[in-house]
């Protein structure tokens, strides 16, 4: 198998800070730390090329640098891509992150890098690649390269991969279940954690609470403004025209639909229904306005409280649907609305 390594101007033996504007170059064979990397990888993976780029150059011309490097890599045999280690060097860390991200996207090969936990590149890129927890300075070079290459070999051989903490990289925010070996029941783990918590001893929660991702509440709309505005209706309650034309899933949805209501005043039984599997559908199937309140909105429209109702209503299913999918769908729907100049929407859940 074949691999390629990315280095900055310093580790690429071009020079120090004064040569940080060095434009990307690709060299056949091993330069600087590539030798140590090759040693660790042994016969399994051959490092065929080393790419070198100045930290300042890529920092100020990120797009150009990334494009140049990607074009250099085209046509090269490559099963894995490495960058760094970048230790605590901030610009170098960011460069490793940008390059790894682009290589992964373009060539779909595993990308690995290494940084110290104080390197800002960690926060910027840890969700998108394997960033190994590296030392603060080049003194850790051998150890950091060893960690990256050991994992790369496991990855390439298709061996069982352990959780981030055990493999030594920064968690990528991807959580999955594993079987404990030796097995320890949840009841035993609860008591262990509880006793530690009661006694004020340190304990490791199995679900560290991520930082909350809240959207600020938008400024309010005056009744005067509202009387001129079209309001959109959006629901995660699974209201669709009977027959579910977009085949939105009844649970764990990944699709949303939009349905023309420009000529409709009421979502009547037999024409609309819910396909949501997470609640008793009787009331919604009898009268879908209980979830998408079109009839009430039309009354407001007649009374002049709102300017109108947006020509489509949007629908998906919330049950079992992941936050990530929900956020994606929300963004897609918001884009449609903004495109049509809609500034107000009612989102109904169930």
């Amino acid at each position, binding site marked *: 198998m074949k691999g390629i390594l990315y280095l900055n101007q310093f580790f690429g033996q071009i020079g120090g800070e004064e040569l940080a504007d060095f434009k990307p170059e690709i060299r056949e064979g091993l330069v600087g730390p590539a030798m140590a990397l090759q040693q660790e990888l042994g016969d399994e993976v051959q490092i065929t090329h080393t790419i070198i780029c100045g930290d300042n150059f890529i920092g100020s011309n990120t797009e150009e640098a990334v494009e140049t490097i990607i074009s250099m890599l085209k046509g090269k045999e490559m099963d894995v891509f490495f960058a760094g280690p970048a230790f605590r060097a901030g610009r170098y860390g960011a460069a490793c992150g940008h390059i790894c991200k682009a290589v992964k996207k373009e060539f779909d090969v595993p990308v690995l890098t290494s940084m110290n936990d104080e390197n800002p590149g960690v926060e910027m890129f840890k*969700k998108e690649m394997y960033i190994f927890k590296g030392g603060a300075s080049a003194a850790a070079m051998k150890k950091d390269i060893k960690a990256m290459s050991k994992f790369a070999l496991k990855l390439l051989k298709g061996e069982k*991969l352990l*959780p*981030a*903490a055990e493999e030594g990289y920064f*968690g*990528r*925010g*991807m*959580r*999955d*279940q*594993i*079987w*404990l070996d030796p*097995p*320890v*029941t*949840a*009841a*035993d*783990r*609860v*008591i262990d*954690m*509880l*006793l530690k*918590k*009661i006694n004020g001893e340190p*304990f490791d*929660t*199995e*679900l560290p*609470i*991520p930082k*909350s*991702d809240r959207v600020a509440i938008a400024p309010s709309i005056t009744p005067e403004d509202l009387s001129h505005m079209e309001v959109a209706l959006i629901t995660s309650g699974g209201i669709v025209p009977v027959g579910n034309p977009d*085949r939105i*899933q*009844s*649970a*764990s949805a990944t699709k949303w639909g939009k349905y023309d209501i420009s000529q409709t005043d009421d979502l009547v039984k037999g024409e609309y229904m819910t396909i949501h*599997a*997470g*609640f*008793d559908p*009787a009331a919604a199937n009898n009268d879908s306005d209980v979830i998408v309140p079109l009839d009430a909105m039309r009354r407001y429209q007649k009374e002049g409280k709102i300017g109108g109702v947006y020509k489509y209503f949007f629908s998906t299913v*919330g*049950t*079992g649907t*992941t*936050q*990530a*999918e929900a956020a994606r769908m929300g963004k897609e729907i918001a884009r449609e609305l903004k495109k049509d100049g809609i500034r107000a929407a009612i989102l109904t859940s169930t």
Partner: protein
Amino acid sequence: MKLELGNFYVKEICFGDKTSLKDGLLTVNKEEALAVVKEDEHITEAELYIVSPGDRVRLVPVKEAIEPRYRVGGGPVFPGVTGDLMQAGNGTTYALKDMSVLVVGRHYGGFQDGLIDMSGEGAKYTYYSQLKNLVLVADTDEIFEQKEQQKKNRALRWAGMRLAEYIGAAVKDLIPDEVETFELEPVTKRSKEINELPSVVLVLQPQSQMEEGGYNDLNYGWDTNRMLPTFMHPNEVLDGAMISGSFMPCSSKWSTYDFQNLPMIRKLYKEHGKTINFLGVIMSNLNVALEQKERAALFVAQMAKSLGADSAVVAEEGYGNPDADFTGCIVALENAGIKTVGLTNECTGRDGASQPLVSLDEKEDAIVSCGNVSTLIRLPKMETVLGELEALARDGLSGGWSNDEILGASVKEDGSIIMENNAMFCGDQVVGWSVKRMVEF
């Protein structure tokens, strides 16, 4: 309150002339057992099977699991459900261990039903693959819900309970292999030594999301949607006061067997008097309306505080909407100064990158997490299927689908399957059995 569980260990199950237990061999008179099942005229078709760990058998749609029991001195195993109301948790009950009665739909499944593989890669996903199981495969005339995604499964679930009582009665005149005693002194009458230990309440949040009757877990036959949090003796839960409902995505569900054996209760009992003072159970619920969630959390925190609890364990039977109850309850307890550990599973999506619980709070700093409902599972064909394999794809099981643009249908032509963990029967074992945990990759 003192409960003595007389345990009979079942090593093997077979069909034979007389329903009886001898030297660990449970013999079942099939005809007699099926007659008990068919006491309900809504059962239109029924057959019994025996499956053991290692058998090349897949069961789907599995609706319920029950431990066969016999109440010594008379009375229903499930007071208020299979017979008159009476106090559960005080007295002697016989239990047939290492086995369960499983109820499987002959054809139709639903959102709440699951899958069990008795061997192979799939076996590790459920607790019931480790047990000897007497399997009732049956159909009913409940046409009104045959094609509904959500089913009450009333006739089948009750048939399972009758069958479990019938099997349990086989040991009524025998001496148990072992007697386990569960006894807690009244909260205010405990010794100085016990009172000096940190006190713990267990808060259980059983499934109660449906407004219409027939779907939710029952407490002495009472719909948990219609109750406020209440203080219970743990023996009541272990002795048939709680039965499973028919609603939750299946890996998150707690079966009746799970309630009868609730490992978290057993563990707290084991620690009682040694490391902790186990005060008892606060039985809460998981109603959908926000006000009901807030009211429940308020009641739980007040009760725990009035009981003098230093700490609490909160376990939820579900994910998604119920996460709001779980988080709300933990926050209310922590705000009351009660050190709390949560017990749950997560929905992090097929790629694992989604927010683990719908509702999160930094006060939830101690959580034991037993699984990802949306993990994709691929399993090869199994020699024998009890029930109907197509149900996984056709009937809207929470972890199955009939069409997916990329993955196709859950059931393949060659009999192999692709599903989400969601449909593994009571697979996440949040009641305390789970040897799975969530980690970050």
